[in-house]
């Protein structure tokens, strides 16, 4: 038993400490986080735009049809259908080897692929949030003389945001873990570094377990922060 434990410790030593290999994990984690944060911002902006267009289209008064809105709505629908209907892995390979076939910056390609993917999911989440706010709320806002954007900004979005926070947290966690797929096009993120260290030592167990724990730790920290934010937002509730 003790011998076995010593063997395991030796394996982990070789995978993390020897030759300052932990630096590789840190640089990989840095790239993973960079991709996550930039793709998240990119995806959120994209998602909100798509969601607002889709909601504005769906909530038009009956009998009124804005042609421009219909075209935009069709485009948004096409976008979400394609992105949600194809696997993330295939999308990343297409971004890396077909669309950006001459780009050497794999992290950038990864960010674009992840951001556009995340945007489609965020769009549906945000749309759900906007639809969940009673129409009476925006009608009241408009009756009080606020224009469409102000009604959205001061009345609908604050309520919607609270509703969608758990789903958005979910999307962030998915996005964070999906960065590991970018290693197929050769971006040196955490999984890539772990696999290469495994390959050099001919022992994949310690780097894989180690990288899994790193992912887990980050997700736990994020979930905790999200819980804090939710509690803070709930302070104004009388529930």
């Amino acid at each position: 038993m003790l011998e076995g434990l010593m063997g395991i410790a030796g394996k982990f030593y070789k995978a993390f400490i020897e030759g300052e290999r932990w630096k590789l994990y840190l640089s990989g984690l840095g790239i993973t986080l960079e991709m996550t944060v930039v793709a998240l911002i990119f995806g959120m902006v994209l998602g909100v735009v798509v969601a607002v267009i889709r909601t504005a289209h769906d909530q038009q008064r009956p009998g009124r049809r804005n042609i421009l809105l219909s075209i935009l709505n069709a485009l948004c629908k096409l976008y979400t259908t394609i992105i949600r209907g194809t696997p993330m892995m295939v999308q990343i390979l297409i971004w890396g080897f077909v669309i950006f076939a001459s780009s050497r910056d794999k992290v950038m390609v990864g960010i674009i692929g992840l951001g556009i993917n995340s945007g489609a999911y965020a769009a549906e989440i945000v749309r759900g949030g906007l639809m969940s706010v009673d129409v009476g709320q925006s009608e009241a806002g408009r009756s009080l003389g606020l224009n469409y954007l102000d009604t959205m900004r001061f009345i609908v979005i604050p309520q919607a945001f609270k509703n969608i926070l758990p789903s958005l947290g979910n999307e962030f966690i998915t996005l964070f873990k999906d960065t590991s797929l970018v290693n197929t096009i050769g971006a040196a993120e955490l999984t890539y570094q772990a696999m290469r260290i495994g390959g050099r030592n001919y022992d994949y167990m310690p780097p894989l377990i180690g990288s899994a724990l790193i992912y887990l730790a980050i997700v736990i920290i994020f979930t905790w922060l999200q819980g804090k934010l939710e509690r803070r937002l709930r302070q104004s509730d009388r529930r």
Partner: protein
Amino acid sequence: MKKLNKILCTVLALTMVLALCACGGTTETQAPQTEAPASEAPATEAPATEAPETEAPAGEFTTVEEGKLHMSTNAQFPPYEMTTDDGGFEGIDVEIAQAIAEKLGLELVVDDMAFNAALTAAQTGQSDMVMAGVTVNEERLEVMDFSDTYATGVQVVIVKEDSPIQTIDDLANAEMIGCQADTTGYIYCSYPVEEGGYGADHVTAYDNGAMAVMALMNGQIDAVVIDNAPAQEFVKANEGLKILDTEFANEDYAIGFAKGNTALRDAVNAALNELIADGTVQAIIDKYIPAA
């Protein structure tokens, strides 16, 4: 108080995960377990003749699955191993393995997976052996047993015809070199400059050689370091590529086994040596690589 509970739970969960890994680690070193083949790799039977249902001549070795010889490989490495149009496998390694399996009275099963997974599968006893143009080196000998050599592998460099890289020395100026993930070519290239490599920042590992060649065609990388035989195929299939005249490295290919699985290794070795002696191995190699 609640917070404390939460933290305690997390710590406990983590300890449990670690304990599980520890258990996994100790069994890992034991010779082949009688487990189903790696679930992520679809086990497809080689489209070859049925092996006779006789007991193996040596008798004392065991295989992962009784009566079957599981070979893990990465079937994207022509002409050593590739898939056929009907979903089967062919290539030098596959045919040699087939001949060995027939000699041992076993049925060959080819498990196709990524190259690094193929190595691990043999080490952990998910497969009986790995044949994927595996080069024997000191580090691999520490964690695996190997058969005798059955083929010589030459690592070469593929570049675009009009590339500024025209000799092996020019590789030092390459902004990015592509390799198949975790092959010896990758490992040599990714060593720091002072240890004779080009530094990990200048090397990208792809899941297979074809992806690296595609990246080269796209202009995403400047050169590909890969074994000569597949390199010939890749250059034939893609216009505008060429192989540098000087070789990058010379290596020996062998069959890999789990460390300590000497019974199976000896049996396979004996069969392999018979096949080398009667010319079968050479005939198979000549079939796929016509003498230049």
